[in-house]
């Protein structure tokens, strides 16, 4: 401690800790995040425009849950991942990159060749348990909070603190 041997990255005020999200199409999966120890998000229903599914997979155990925003269980998520969860994994990979998603979920996949199929396959092959779905309300409220970010007005008073968050070309 205090030996002055910090690396350049450790001594940097503007070190990039979280890479920018990659752009992706939101039509099917409007919200995905790695938070609260889960990959979680919201998947739009293919048949009912007013309905969304709240889906999640827990890091490490891959315990999964999927239900509608009105708390009805998803018929497909019995015994294994439903199509909503599969779509969620796929979009998470697009947004955050396979490495970050695999690391967060603690999925062992090898290098460049890994894609949504291999990541999903690696999780399904462990025969994960169905989660209790108690997180759904929380995930949905995080989605609403996320949407609320569109509602704030821009301001022209400077935010000097943003100097610590330079734009970066590097993406996940």
């Amino acid at each position: 401690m205090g030996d002055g041997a910090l690396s350049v990255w450790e001594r940097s005020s503007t070190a990039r800790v979280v890479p920018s999200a990659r752009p992706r199409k939101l039509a099917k999966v409007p919200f995905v995040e790695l938070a609260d120890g889960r990959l979680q998000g919201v998947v739009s229903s293919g048949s009912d425009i007013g309905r969304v599914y709240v889906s999640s997979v827990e890091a490490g155990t891959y315990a999964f849950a999927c239900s509608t925003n009105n708390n009805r269980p998803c018929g497909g998520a019995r015994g294994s991942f439903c199509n909503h969860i599969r779509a969620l994994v796929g979009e998470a990979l697009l947004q955050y990159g396979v490495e970050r998603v695999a690391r967060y979920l603690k999925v062992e996949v090898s290098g460049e060749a890994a894609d949504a199929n291999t990541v999903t396959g690696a999780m399904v092959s462990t025969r994960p348990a169905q989660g209790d779905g108690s997180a759904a309300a929380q995930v949905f409220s995080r989605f609403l909070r996320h949407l609320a970010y569109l509602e704030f007005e821009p301001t022209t008073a400077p935010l000097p603190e943003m100097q610590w968050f330079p734009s970066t070309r590097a993406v996940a």
Partner: protein
Amino acid sequence: MRADLLTDAVDGLDEALAAVDGFDEVLVDGLLRPQPAQAVGPAGLADAVAGSPLAGRVAEAAEKTAAGAAGEDHFVALAAARTALLGSVHDALVVRAEEAVGRPRPEEIGTAPPGGAEHAVNLLVAARSWLCDLARAGWRGIDHELVAGASAVVSAMLPEPGLRRLAALLDGFAAELAASCPGATLEQVPVRRWADLWSRAMLLTLPGAVSAPAVAGVTGRLLPLGMDLQEHATAVQAQVHAVFEPADGGASRLVRASVSAPKPDSVVGAGLWQLLRPRLSLLAAVSEGRAMELDAMPVTAEGDLLWDDARARTGEPAEVFATARVALPTAVASPTAPLDRHPARIAVPVLLEGYGVEEGEDGPVFLVAGVRLAVDVDRVPAAGPLTPEAVAGSGACVGLLRWDAGAFVLQPLAVERTVRKKAVAVHAGAWAGGTSDKAGVRAEKAATDTVTVLRERAGRLLRK
């Protein structure tokens, strides 16, 4: 430019940073149950400010911290000491940078009196309490539950424009911490960065800390130099650096105009410009390569224009490299407000010409009068025409001189390349106001679709 000055040692810099590093390392393991070795960090901070008005309070805070008995006020005192030390580092580096570019020194300012109403004190108290919990846990002790504590505070702060600074900081900080949970398994900790964000946030929880009132209204011509973009997952800020020429014939000044907004993390690239565009007509002027005429535009003592579209109209064409060659050399910078003095805040506009280019490990390096100056091409916004290749093939560059991790670096804002014997300029912020570039139009379309989907979902789900 006297580039040699940028690599010369700065007196006292290593000592000041060693005191900062000593304290920062203590935050890695946290202050809940300090080990004897951890007393060294806070004590070093206290020693470093022993000759300042902070001396007594910081010495007491260091002592209490070593005993594991520090309260919130003690943490505030330590954050203040660290901020003061980095402030002195900032000052020394700015003097050096301005010597190097040959810019006239600004007048010193005192602290402007705080203006406006005080903001919800309970939110500031809640934020401080969360930050103190973080300091006790240390970066190695963070978990999802602790980090999630910031979310309610941020949500309550965001609708209040006067609290945007702290809200944007806490939101970005908490997102990084959340992505790094659990701290116990972190391979590497961004030691200085997180201590920066922590101490900055601590000070912003003090009433009056964020006040930056306008001190004058300025009338004259604004000549843009370039665009600096800053973003984290849920906030974005664009800052236009420009030369302002007063209509009364007074000395021209370096100023900035900013626009910022909270954002969903899926809004990226050209979507950022779309979010900011409606609030700052200057973005369009930058894209069109035009000056703007300002009429009594409010400006702070730091040289930040508090932009109001009603006080600006689009002016004559103004070429950035002409501005940089003719107007930039005599423009005077404004001094930085005391609390904002930090090396990360350094952004000195500069024109470089006649340099050599080498390919370094992390992108191009300019050889300026025999000195190697790293070019941070990673900072150039992805939604724009300026590419690392264009920078590497350039013959002139307008950029911001910055300092990080022990060295000056150049952030390119625009470059000039010679194409068929003609100088062609490429600007980092060229797409800010919109573009007819093919790749740019595609990026705009994708970004529009993103926001359309989110708004549709919000319309259906948000108010039920």
